């Protein structure tokens, strides 16, 4: 079973990476780039075959390792 996790910075938290990318894109001549935010995308391959159990496990993984919940949000897709 595959799980896909998106980890993104919470609203209002400074995103230096995103800001630098935005600058770079503009410097490269791309116009109309209003905002860029960078997050992480983590793909997990799990032995678990039950969807709900997998989600519950990944939820726990996010809380304990994958996301820094002080500044980051996460979302989970299971398929």
């Amino acid at each position, binding site marked *: 079973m595959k799980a896909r996790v998106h980890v993104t910075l919470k609203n209002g938290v*400074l995103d230096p990476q995103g800001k630098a990318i935005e600058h770079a894109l503009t410097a490269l001549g791309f116009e109309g780039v209003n905002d860029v935010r960078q997050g992480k995308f983590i793909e997990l391959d799990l032995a678990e075959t039950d969807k709900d159990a997998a989600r519950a496990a990944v939820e726990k993984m996010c809380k304990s390792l994958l996301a820094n919940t002080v500044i980051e949000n996460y979302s989970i897709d299971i398929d």
Partner: protein
Amino acid sequence: MTAFENNIDITEDLIAEHGLSADEYQRVLDIMGRTPTLTELGIFSVMWSEHCSYKSSRLHLKKLPTEAPWVICGPGENAGIIDIGDGQAAIFKMESHNHPSYIEPYQGAATGVGGILRDVFTMGARPVANMNALRFGEPEHPKTRHLLSGVVEGIGGYGNCVGVPTVGGETNFHPSYNGNILVNAMTVGLADADNIFYCAAAGVGNPVVYVGSKTGRDGIHGATMASAEFTEDSEEKRPTVQVGDPFTEKLLIEACLELMQKDAIVAIQDMGAAGLTSSSVEMASKGDVGFELNLNNVPQREEHMTPYEMMLSESQERMLMVLKPGHEGEAEAIFRKWDLDFAVIGEITDTGNLTLTFDGDVVADIPVAPLTDLAPEYDRPWVPSEPKADIKAEDVAAPADLGDALLKMMGSPHLASRKWIWEQYDHMVMGDTIQRPGGDAAMVRVHGTEKGLAISTDCTPRYCYADPVQGGRQAVAETWRNITATGATPLAITNCLNFGNPERPEIMGQFVECLKGMGEACIALDYPVVSGNVSLYNETNGTGIHPTPAIGGVGLIADTSKMTTIAPKAEGEVLVLIGGGQGHLGASLYLDIIESREDGGAPEVDLDKERHYGDFVREQILGSKVSACHDISDGGLLVALTEMSLASSIGFDIDLGDNLPIHAAAFGEDQARYILSVTAAHAEQIVKDAQDENIPASILGKTQGTDLIVKGQMNIPLQQVLDLHRNWMPEYMRAEHSA
């Protein structure tokens, strides 16, 4: 008076939430002559917080000695400044970022480094060295690994990116820090003595300029948070943490230093805790002028920010400047070149008020002088600490085997190598690190000269706990000794005073007494305090940390080719002990590690002896008679000798005699002592010269082979110590993610 943004009721709850007592609020009313606006309340609240106003500590800080002929600027500015000759100055300061680092270790520590860097380059100095003094809970505590790992990564992440070498520090573990870790960061910078910048604003009509990053809602109330005791649920509340952007900081350093080469700046101040509020208030107050700021012009990262939020935001990487009229264009061009925001946000006035407008309304109008001058100052009640009962060596069991005891100590969390930490720091960038981490003091060469700055941070909290006066002395004396051991002359210190809740008389007593000891040492050693920082309320659920007045010392050597390290250069050198001692075991690491006891009194620090012996040692080093030198501190004589062996990969063969019980001779922590490694030709002479000056000196033995030998007591392979010493921390951290 114009319409105020005053539709918010200033209720008792609101006042309490802002950390103002009833008396303090009454004082606000007296100053304002009316109910303050919310923005004004916020400004009073942060300016009068412990963090910004030093209300519990100010009275006592005033007693510290701050003067010497080489001091250019003592406490009160962003950082302290000393003259290092040839028209050059060293500018340095240490600061805490304890609470944020506990909540978010990476960002907390990173922004701590960013903040202290700004304090230093604000004054016109190029930062040349970073140091860090860290205290964590006991290794077994479930949070310790995570905190250690995050803090170290954060310090490295920030310092490495800005390209300032992190050259040393100290790391302790103790249960008293389980819920309150300490992250103290120090920066040393170099400037031309005739091109230093201060924060006092001047010149009515001069433009007030904002540069750096945009303002967001980061860390609003950070300063008040740093002043409140932790409770279990402040972890849950997770206040907005500031995220550092070292890339922007690097650009800010370069842009500011470039502008400082022009004749454009009247005054400059970084936006640290309490951001725009404390920077503008400080600049206005020091310059006895008013500021009028139009908050609509503040570069903003987020939408719909209120004046309150802008004034209290602790967004990082921002500075405030007053420019000479007509220099806006020149300054703007430089900041644009470095891709940084630049905005004129106001001007200097003659009103003496901090006047803030937003959307055409005046939203705050506070007289600056009373805001700063009438800030609360407390003479908090304190009680002297109970002196701990002394412990005689005879009453402590001797180790069954001296070698086993040594191995156990060298492989313990307290003495194990910190290489795992400093290898994550770029300690060589800038190409002037001539003494890397691992020795007594770090040394960075003054770029392009033969001069070197020796830097050391020290504090032995278990002594401060056992006896605050001696502990305060010892912290200062140990940095002085570490610097002396390189051949440099110690010149001045900065400090970071980390204590528990000052509203408890025992804690306040620790504070007052540590300061007393520090002050005595500074005077005796001609080693004044030029900057510092206080961090109180390091306390969780009523348990305070060990008193931890971390000291950062800076010294100067004129000719770096004379510098010594702790590594003997060859076999057959003679090991000379300078200084005497009774084998003091109270509050020692031996008691802690081998006997699992933390009792006993701290060793006495005889400041006259410190000065006398240290000056003698330095003279020998500068006279090129010494191959290596190490002061004796944590763990005593045998530990110090072993550290010299570890640094050189050369063993030793010594005799500890039988005047003292063996554990007292080997591990007693008597002060004012050094080990010199010298060629045979110099040894007798040094001992004789010392004795002629009434300094205890004796020959311990010599460097030799690859074993550590104490006559009749111990014979162990150096490799065995090396493995234990080197492996503890990496192995400990390997389990970082185990459940």
